[in-house]
């Protein structure tokens, strides 16, 4: 094997690994499916080219292109990364919250094809389908290096590999931080992440730009190595190859991305060398079969091993040294949640002499004014005006289809109102998006299973913590020393909550592996970690053992005594009876009555609504 062959292999491996790392960060970690990924590598390649090339009249003017600034190394490479990142910005409109993930992905795919068409057909831009050639290699002008020597080539190779390793360290740093955890939460369930205070648009934009910059850099390196670049090198099929690499190697695992890069783009090319060529075979057969094989690999891997060869590692968080066992009762492993007994809570310290104010005399923290929600002509919620008062555990009941969950969703911001106003702590928040409401202290839970499945229970809890210094892009880059203190404090809080609800031995289990009742508890604990002032619970006791439901109810009452306001949608009238005061009854989208359960039981229209509705 001669040296130039090895150099070629290594450079391609480094470039492909870098591109796959960028894609792994975008897709595997953050769940942003960017089928236009190749555009960013192409943009970087072209940027490096037009920055390094002399003016297009040079060399007899056989190419026409913009730029031609003849800049020295390393500016073309830096420019490649910058352009790759900038190109991402216009596409953020496709990945904002409003569009379905698969639609957005298709939009990006279409964009890739569109841009390829434009570049191919508009020759003055980047020399059209012929592409750019005679691209200067780095440091070509200096007489220190003679470009053709093996020495130069080896230095280039080492530079490429070093940069690939730098990118690896960079993405690992992001992913291992609290910010990375928020990205993974967004990937697992974006609606829930939104409701916990994550700004999805900002996160996705950051990932598009980061991935774009990495891809751009890889393009820049590649282009200055092969010294040519044309639209044929970056059709949308190339994106599919990169996706195949990341899926096979292991989405969400950065070493997996590198492995995938070696196996798929590089491996495929190399394997074809060993297939004997024969003149009896049609010339197109081997390349066609290569594509068929890639397609088969994608489908087979997604079926048999969707997590890839190197799956995403479970992040185990060491809890501080075990407390004295007498303080808590350990539940049997895998036992039903009903067996877990939260440690008895000490009575809330009575800070005030007078008894707490009666519910109807307390200040209003959350109210709706004539709120309506329509779905295609049907009014799910029709002109509802309710008031939730501070420190109360307010119940919201009604038969199926009454509009309770819809109302709760509008309060939380998950669903926009059709008309009406929502006022929180004196402020009109009708137009405020869900994640901002969460940051204001208005947090909700969900009716159906909504834990972050591929995060551990501990990570689920930590993801909800507001104000962690490591939960910003900048914070993640500054590294562990910057955010470790906040993280340790958050872990301590999480551990305390786990003990309170008796689930501490599941701290490092994947949340998706727990039983239904346990997941329900995780949901509530996670909402509490978000430091809510007002908590909106959507059927927290659904499907939960009555004993456990009672314990949850007691916890909620205790929280209200400490000053939290809770609005709880529930079906179980017994629960309402025991814990809630006041209770609001809805039926057919409107408020029917309000009062204590005793008062409501006496009202015929309430009883009828439940029997009939």
């Amino acid at each position, binding site marked *: 094997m001669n040296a130039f062959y090895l150099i070629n292999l290594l450079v391609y491996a480094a470039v492909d690994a870098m591109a796959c790392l960028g894609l792994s960060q975008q897709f595997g970690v953050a769940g942003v*499916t960017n*089928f236009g990924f190749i555009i960013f590598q192409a943009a970087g390649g072209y940027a490096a080219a037009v920055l390094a090339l002399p003016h297009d009249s040079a060399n007899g003017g056989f190419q026409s292109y913009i730029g031609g600034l003849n800049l020295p190394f390393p500016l073309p490479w830096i420019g490649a990364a910058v352009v790759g990142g900038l190109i991402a910005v216009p596409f953020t*409109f*496709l990945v904002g919250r*409003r*569009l*379905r*993930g*698969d*639609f*957005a*992905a*298709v*939009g990006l795919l*279409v*964009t890739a*094809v*569109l841009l390829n*068409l*434009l570049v*191919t*057909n508009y020759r003055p831009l980047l020399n059209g389908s012929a592409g750019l050639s005679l691209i200067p290699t780095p440091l070509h002008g200096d007489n220190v290096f003679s470009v053709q020597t093996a020495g130069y080539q080896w230095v280039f190779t080492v530079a490429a590999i070093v940069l690939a390793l730098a990118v690896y360290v960079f993405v690992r740093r992001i992913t291992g931080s609290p910010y990375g955890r928020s990205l993974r939460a967004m990937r697992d369930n974006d609606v829930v992440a939104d409701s916990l205070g994550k700004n999805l648009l900002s996160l996705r934009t950051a990932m598009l730009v980061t991935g774009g910059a990495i891809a751009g850099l890889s393009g820049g390196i590649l282009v200055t190595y092969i010294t040519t670049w044309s639209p044929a090198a970056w059709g949308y*099929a190339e994106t*599919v190859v990169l*996706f*195949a690499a990341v*899926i096979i190697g292991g989405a969400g695992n950065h070493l997996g991305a590198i492995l995938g890069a070696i196996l798929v783009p590089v491996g495929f090319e190399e394997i074809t060398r060993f297939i004997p060529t024969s003149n009896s075979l*049609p*010339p*197109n*057969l081997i390349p*066609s*079969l*290569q*594509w*068929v094989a*890639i*397609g*088969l*690999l*994608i*489908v087979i891997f*997604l*079926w048999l091993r*969707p997590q890839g060869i190197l799956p995403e590692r479970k992040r185990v968080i060491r809890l501080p040294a075990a407390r004295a066992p007498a303080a808590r009762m350990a539940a049997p492993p895998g036992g039903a949640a009903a067996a877990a007994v939260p440690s008895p809570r000490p009575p809330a310290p009575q800070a005030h002499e007078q008894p707490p104010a009666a519910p109807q005399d307390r200040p209003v923290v959350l109210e709706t004014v004539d709120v309506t929600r329509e779905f*295609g002509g049907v009014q799910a919620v029709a002109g509802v005006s309710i008031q939730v008062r501070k420190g109360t555990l307010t119940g919201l009941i009604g038969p199926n289809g009454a509009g309770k969950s819809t109302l709760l969703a509008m309060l939380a911001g998950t669903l926009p109102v059709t008309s009406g106003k929502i006022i929180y702590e004196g402020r009109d928040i009708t137009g405020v998006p869900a994640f901002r409401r969460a940051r204001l202290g208005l947090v909700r839970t969900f009716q159906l299973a909504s834990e972050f499945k591929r995060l551990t229970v501990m990570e689920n809890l930590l993801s909800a913590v507001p104000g962690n210094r490591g939960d910003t892009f900048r914070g993640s880059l500054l590294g562990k020393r910057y955010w470790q203190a906040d993280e340790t404090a958050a872990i301590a809080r999480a551990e305390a909550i786990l003990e309170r609800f008796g689930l501490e031995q599941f701290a490092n289990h994947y949340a998706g592996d727990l039983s239904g009742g346990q997941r329900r508890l995780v949901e509530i604990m996670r909402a509490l970690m978000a430091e809510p002032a007002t908590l909106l619970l959507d059927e927290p006791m659904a499907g939960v053992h009555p004993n456990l439901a009672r314990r949850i109810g007691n916890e909620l009452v205790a929280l209200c005594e400490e000053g939290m306001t809770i609005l709880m949608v529930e079906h179980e009238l017994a629960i309402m009876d025991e814990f809630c005061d006041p209770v609001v009854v809805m039926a057919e989208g409107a408020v029917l009555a309000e009062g204590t359960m005793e008062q409501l039981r006496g009202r015929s229209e309430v009883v009828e609504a439940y029997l009939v509705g």
Partner: protein
Amino acid sequence: MTIFLSSLGFGLVTASVLAIAAVGFTLQFGVTDVLNLAYGAIMIAGAFVAYVVNQAGLSVWVGLVVAVIACSLGSVLLNSGVYTPFQRRGTSPITLVIVSLGMTLIIEFGVQALAGGTAVSYTMSQGTTFHAGGLILSVVQLVVIALSIVVMLGVHGLLRYTRLGKAMRATAANKSLARNCGIRTDRVITITWALTGGLCGLAGVVFAMDSGSFDATATDLFLILILAAVFLGGPGQAYGAMLGAVVIGLATEISAAYITADYKYVVAFVALLIMLGVRPTGLLGARA
């Protein structure tokens, strides 16, 4: 004016091919909630089936019938054998799109492996050309337009007036509710894929007829036109797909007459991106 009219003629033909294809695609999506990106690959597979029949000495119209049957069967296999098992597992929609991309590679390049990379064309006569005040259309083109109208009417009749059509609309609107109402949704889905697979094959053959010469990758760009038409009209809405097809078909060809022909697809792509960004439910879809 003659430029406009002749491009209008091209536009009508393109819109016709597009309408047949888009209606099939959108119905598949409506009933199964899968963006079957392998649709273009099945189209070109159908075109090649007709080619093989044609090369064997039979008329290309016979080939068309064979292609329709083949693609119908192939599509049913694709859904039952690939998409449904993944869906039963709870696979996310985005992963299903990646699966469909994988299937695209398998089918398209499988065809290329068998048929070779060179472009081929049907042996058929275009028939006499008709001139109507500037519009110039050959018999074959007129037949394509007529076929498309027949298909549109047929789909309209099916969806509106037959029990099957209503069952399809119910399944598309709310599958579990439809099942609870006694509709055999699995059977409805299989029949839908069989019908739309047939439309896919038909679309492939008329596409090949309209293109003159074609190779295995010829439908790559056309798939984007289909997506543009589907999203313009609203994904899952059959009438929306028809509307989208007419708009996109006419817009691309007429713009091609006035801007360079190379850019004609750009109009469609930009329309698609704008729809996705501004109104993803399409012109005829319900407001989200």
